């Protein structure tokens, strides 16, 4: 039998801590995953419903929701270095489409930042509709790919898109329609989306924005000449063909909104330690479903930071800088401390109620403590005992705390 020699480093490595995800966080991630309507990339993706975005903040949530909507975002392809891509695009282009394509797409390489930028714009109209599809991709030079089995998955950069559909008729005609069914077809590869009219941006305009991985290719291939969009509304159906549009109409348009959100988030995360921030999140304005960003902090944020955020956002969505009482750092320590005292050590035993969970409620900027049965007097009893301002005593039996109660039951 082969003997394996183990040395001191082997032993040290073997004994390194193996932290696991805490139970409630694990539950949260699992629930979040199970609530996503993810389809295999080869199947038709589901449609992005803007309202769902309300309850989710942060990159993963936004990415996950919109990521799988419009296209297969991870393209299985041969891995090629960034500088080879441009040459290949030129070589592969069909002569007939070449002129068209040069107008239709723009590829820029920035040597300083090592980034490729890919842009595409398609426009068209039918009897009742005008449509526009804009694609913006950022690729990192020296793209990343990985092999799974014998296939290579390319996972470079990000892309984003915006689809705008404007009804040309009277707004009253379209406002009575509850749902639109939109099918896009790129080279015969069709995707169907159902769009609630709740997502109307204005009287007559539908606006959809999404983000995905793979900056270069996302949804659009280099040789795509047109996109067909079929709209069904009420009993009617129309097909709009969107053709590649001229460069000067879309130059400097920049990332689509979903993408811009991600870029701004990256800037925030690179600039401020998340422990120093209370939270950052995107909400949707209830009246028109446009996103706005909330950056909350217990300390006054530096003006240069605010200026940069506003410069990046470029008026494409609203930003609110919110002052809150407690930092993430403080809530984190309160959360850990109270979990130990109240849940693990059961330091406080009341005759009137039981304590079921202690958890940081980021957006409330408090550490929530769930008790049952809940009354104002019971809550006051706990407030008096703990004598700290950064907590919120809650009714643990409320529906939204179901998971936390389940965790409690599992652990006890």
């Amino acid at each position, binding site marked *: 039998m082969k003997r394996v020699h183990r040395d001191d480093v082997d032993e040290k490595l073997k004994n390194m801590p*193996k932290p696991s995800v805490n139970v409630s966080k694990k539950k949260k991630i699992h629930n979040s*995953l199970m609530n996503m309507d993810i389809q295999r990339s080869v199947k038709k993706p589901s449609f992005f419903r803007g309202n769902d975005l309300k309850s989710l903040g942060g990159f993963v949530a936004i990415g996950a929701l919109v990521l799988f909507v419009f296209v297969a975002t991870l393209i299985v392809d041969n891995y090629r270095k960034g500088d080879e891509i441009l040459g290949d695009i030129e070589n592969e282009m069909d002569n007939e489409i070449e002129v068209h394509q040069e107008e239709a797409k723009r590829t820029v390489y920035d040597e300083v930042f090592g980034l490729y930028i890919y842009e595409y714009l398609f426009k068209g109209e039918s009897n009742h509709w005008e449509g526009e599809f804009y694609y913006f991709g950022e690729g990192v030079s020296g793209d990343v790919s990985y092999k799974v089995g014998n296939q290579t998955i390319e996972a470079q950069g990000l892309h984003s898109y915006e689809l705008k559909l404007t009804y040309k008729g009277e707004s009253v005609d379209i406002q009575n329609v509850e749902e639109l069914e939109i099918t896009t077809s790129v080279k015969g590869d069709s995707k169907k989306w159902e769009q609630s009219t709740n997502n109307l941006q204005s009287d007559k305009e539908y606006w959809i924005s999404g983000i995905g991985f793979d900056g270069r290719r996302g949804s659009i291939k280099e040789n795509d000449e047109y996109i067909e969009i079929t709209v069904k509304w009420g009993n009617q159906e129309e097909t709009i063909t969107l053709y590649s549009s001229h460069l000067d109409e879309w130059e400097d348009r920049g990332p689509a909104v979903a993408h811009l959100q991600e870029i701004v988030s990256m800037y925030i995360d690179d600039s401020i330690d998340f422990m120093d921030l209370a939270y950052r999140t995107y909400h949707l304005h209830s009246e028109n479903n446009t996103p706005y960003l909330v950056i909350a902090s217990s300390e006054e944020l530096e003006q240069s930071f605010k200026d940069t955020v506003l410069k990046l956002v470029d008026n494409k969505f609203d930003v609110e800088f919110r002052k809150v009482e407690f930092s993430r750092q403080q809530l984190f320590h309160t959360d850990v401390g109270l979990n130990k005292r109240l849940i693990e050590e059961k330091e406080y035993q009341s005759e009137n109620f039981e304590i079921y969970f202690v958890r940081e409620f980021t957006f409330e900027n408090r550490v929530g403590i769930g008790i049952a049965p809940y009354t104002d007097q019971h809550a006051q009893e706990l407030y008096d005992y703990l004598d700290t301002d950064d907590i919120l005593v809650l009714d643990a039996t409320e529906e939204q705390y179901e998971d936390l109660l389940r965790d409690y039951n599992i652990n006890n």
Partner: protein
Amino acid sequence: MTDKERISEWFHQYSDDVYHFLIYRVGFHEAEDLLQEVYIRAWKNIDLFEWQSNPKTWLLSIARHLAVDEYRIKKKSIWKKMISFESKHETKSVVSPESIFEWNEEKANIYLGIQSLKENYRDVLILRGIQELSVRDTAEALQWSENKVRLTYFRAKDALRKNLERGMYRETSSQG
């Protein structure tokens, strides 16, 4: 079994392994975010999963590539281009002292020592050394040959040992 059920099962079975790998690979702060991302990618690309191979090593290979991807995107983010100047705020380390403060000095040094090594070394030390995957499973997760795993692991341990002997992390640790 539906895709959703399969992903759920894999989550229950392997999320700790994936999370744990990510902690050593990208730090505590990023690990939770990336954990979810690993499962999203797995779900989306479940067609590519070869059933004869091990879901754990497949998930770890996705985690590893996400970690690389995350690093490169962060390094060369387009926001830098958009604002045309480097941030006035210094980017803070992904290593949070709160996260390893409970570890003893030696373990904290090893953690920091691993983080200072090159990517290949980090990968193989985490998978083979800390997670104690077999050579074969490590090779599968990293998509290397088994010989490359053995050789790289040997070199990585050597590099780590030299770092630790030099005591280059002692000062950092005692300050924290």
